[in-house]
């Protein structure tokens, strides 16, 4: 039985940082899975966004479905500078956990879609799912995470896995 689910890299921040980047991602897998836990360096409004190949232009769109324990809703962003993952906030203990699937990430003919599942439980908790689109046909060889306000916080951890179809 070949090994088809392999860890590529893990990053855990020892101190606050502006971003986390996984570069030189091998093109030998079929799909990529990213698992992590978000931490913000401080409170306040703060989005964590995922970008591919360092593209910080507004080439991404997003559809979001969420439930916060009392209501359900959906919204959409077009032409944003990354796929919004969630909203960590250190002042109220929101540290969302997430799983992202990026299928067929290394093809060079289609735009790339990411399926995001994230949750944060307890007070102010919510469950959500997103689908994000990167309008580029480039093969993905770099995945990075950024915030729209404060730094990423110490303790934030992300693991990248590669999945082979055979």
């Amino acid at each position: 039985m070949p090994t088809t689910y392999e860890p590529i890299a893990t990053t855990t921040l020892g101190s606050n940082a502006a971003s986390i980047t996984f570069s030189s991602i091998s093109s030998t897998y079929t799909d990529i899975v990213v698992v992590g836990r978000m931490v913000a360096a401080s409170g306040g409004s703060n989005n964590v966004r995922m970008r591919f190949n360092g593209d910080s232009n507004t080439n991404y769109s997003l559809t979001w479905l969420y439930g916060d324990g009392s209501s359900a809703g959906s919204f959409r962003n077009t032409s944003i500078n990354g796929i919004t993952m969630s909203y960590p906030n250190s002042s109220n203990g929101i540290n969302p956990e997430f799983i992202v699937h990026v299928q067929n990430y290394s093809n060079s003919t289609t735009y790339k879609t990411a399926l995001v599942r994230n949750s944060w439980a307890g007070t102010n908790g919510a469950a959500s799912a997103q689908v994000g689109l990167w309008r580029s046909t480039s093969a993905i060889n770099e995945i990075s995470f950024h915030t729209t306000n404060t730094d990423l916080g110490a303790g934030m951890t992300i693991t990248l896995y590669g999945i082979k179809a055979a």
Partner: protein
Amino acid sequence: MATTYEAIATVTVGSGGAASIEFTSIPQTYTDLLVKYSLRDNVTSGGASNNATISFNGSSANGTSRELYGNGATAASASLTNAKVDYHSSANATANTFGSAELYIPNYTSSNNKSSSSDGVSETNATTALMAMNANLWSQTAAITSLSLAPSGGSWVQYSSATLYGIKNS
């Protein structure tokens, strides 16, 4: 390259049914746990769907969840207590139909409160059927060494099954 996605154990309910599905003596050598399950209970009251109750280390205390769900007609959200998580099929669902779900538990050996996410459906051949996503919190700090899935009432019927996987990040 080490194998990082390993099946630890599978439980399939036999002909007599079972009050719960248990995984004990879970190795502490993985980074995350994943449980995939196919469940149906024998409860005849109520609708075609019920919540499952999950216990860690023999306790369902301090288990809460935020749930996003839809039934094919509407979507809504709820807060759950008593360690209830996503849906499975009940005795009122179409015969031979089992709900399917998966539960992902990151960092299960840590000394922090344990959060997890789950996705589940309670399929039945009817006008509506439930699917849900849950953000779960188990406010206890002990490393998880055992895990139990129980119906909110009654018992699991024959052929209900669950598999526990361990995932390593290195």
